[in-house]
């Protein structure tokens, strides 16, 4: 599969990130960068620290050491709201959907940052408030169309099958109109068809909106196919970084996955 890509400058730069919980070292001295419009995969055996890495990027965890540079601005500390405001959105490995709400409402929450009406305006729901709600509804409906979940828009998400819930998770992240999308195992637990659909969505998002994508994924086929560059983690350390083919042949990587050197 070859695509026209306009991979740009470095948009995210992680420098010497170290993260520990009590005595447990989740990440040790990790540095890598992500370029604009690219699809960057993070791979590694279970427990390597991949989810922790994503959590650091969008501020859920604060690293003990290291700096994050996003769009040229350097942060020692990031918090989730600021990350959201700066255009970083993410999905979750274990799905963090709002079980009590419908698909439509879940994705609408992704628009919350951009909704400006105050409480009083919302209570009376006069002109501007109603119009704002409708305008955001339109954006969300476009996303619903894109993800092909129109039939389920009023269903409470708790009732949907897992594959569809994952799409809603993606939809909610897309609703934030992010510059950078962090996907934590978006295809976990899916069958082949669902994976193909999800791949298509991710590629489309990257193509149409130019969103930079950082994705954690276990399926090597997917990784090799769609990513531009790959970072490999093992036991919290970086053991590989580069184009998929180079990484695939890297001895350290092979050893980490298989346990013996070939």
């Amino acid at each position, binding site marked *: 599969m070859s695509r026209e890509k306009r991979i740009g400058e470095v948009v995210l730069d992680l420098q010497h990130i170290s993260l520990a919980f009590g005595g447990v070292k989740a990440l040790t001295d990790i540095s890598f960068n992500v370029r604009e419009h690219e699809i960057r995969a993070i791979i590694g055996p279970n427990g390597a620290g991949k989810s922790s890495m994503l959590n650091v990027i*969008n501020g859920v965890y604060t690293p003990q050491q290291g700096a994050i540079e996003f769009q040229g601005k350097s942060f020692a500390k990031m918090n989730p709201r600021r990350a*959201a405001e700066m255009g970083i959105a*993410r999905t979750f490995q274990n799905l963090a959907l*709002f079980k009590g709400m419908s698909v439509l409402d879940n994705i609408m*929450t992704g628009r*919350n940052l951009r909704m400006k009406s105050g409480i009083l305006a*919302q209570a*009376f729901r006069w002109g501007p408030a109603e119009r704002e709600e409708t305008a955001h509804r339109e954006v969300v409906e476009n996303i619903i169309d894109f993800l092909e979940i129109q039939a389920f828009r009023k269903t409470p998400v708790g009732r949907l099958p897992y594959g569809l819930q994952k799409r809603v998770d993606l939809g909610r992240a897309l609703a934030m109109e992010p510059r950078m999308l962090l996907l934590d195992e978006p295809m976990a637990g899916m069958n082949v068809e669902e994976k193909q659909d999800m791949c298509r969505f991710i590629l489309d998002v990257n193509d149409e909106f130019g969103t930079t994508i950082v994705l954690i994924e276990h399926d090597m086929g997917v990784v090799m196919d769609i990513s531009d560059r790959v970072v490999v983690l093992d036991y919290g350390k970086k053991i590989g970084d580069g184009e998929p083919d180079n990484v695939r042949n890297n001895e350290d990587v092979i050893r980490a996955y298989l346990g013996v050197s070939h």
Partner: protein
Amino acid sequence: MFYRENGQFKTSYRADQQIFPIRQDRIFMLLVLAVAFLAVPMLASDYLLRAILIPFLILSLSAIGLNILVGYCGQISLGTGAFMAVGAYAAFNFGVRFPFLPLMVQILLGGLCATIVGVVFGIPSLRIRGLYLAVATLAAQFFVDWAFLRIPFLTNYSASGSVSVANLQVFGYPLQSALSRYLFCLSVVAVFALLAKNLVRGAIGREWMAIRDMDVAASVIGIRPMYAKLTAFAVSSFIVGVAGALWGYMHLGSWEPLAFSLERSFQLLFMVIIGGLGSIVGSFFGAAFIVLLPVGLNNIPHMLGLPLSVDTASHIEHMIFGGLIVFFLIVEPHGLAKLWAIAKEKLRIWPFPH
């Protein structure tokens, strides 16, 4: 057969977003309003108005307020009685010291004071969760109980410890008769219910529900948990405060702190659980249930020829409440409102079974 969406196509998001998108629901709502505003005044006895309908309306309003906090935002509050008390006493104080203030303004000011107190006791809630918040709200309850008993300024130095209001009027119409009070309460409750419904189906409502369902994920989307919880507390306390002022002014006439005791707080919580957490209409169901049960317990055994003593009736009431709470929490956490929704679903496909 009668209740279906066939042929009702929405051609705009605005139409799809309305409170009652199905035409039959709109008709039903209009009927309910017609009965409430027109039929009841013509047919209801004074007793019905004073003992059942007015308390039902005011407690529904209070339940709506509590539901916003507990049902929509997932925070627990055991001190609702205290906030009702603040609303009532604050309105009273404004009325006594500034008699020129119109009735509605007094009531709204009462609500505002309740908001302030609510926010003050709610700020600790930002750092603590669940059961600890229950402790904080209990602290509010006991403190407020004490304050309105022992701080003479708050009761306008009343010798008996209780306060009373008189000569209530709105736009020059006196509010003495049960009917006038009923209509006043009905109007206030209807307006507030609409405002509350607008809030919960808008952006702030979604924020509240996001915090309730998964607050970590909510912060990742950019929702500030602190802001959401505080606004939930504030809006909830305001509504509850207004309800408290109405309770004192319209229902009791004269009151003392006991009227807003812990028992009342629990009662409101039960209304919300039984009626349906996270549902405006559920608040009405819950209030109706709580108001009607004692009446039923007092009258039905009598009619069946098995009189119960007042004490026993009260104990049975406790058992029924307790049992129902457990029942609903286990079987149907969305309470009577969900049962109502299920009934409507069945009605949609009637006369077919599925």
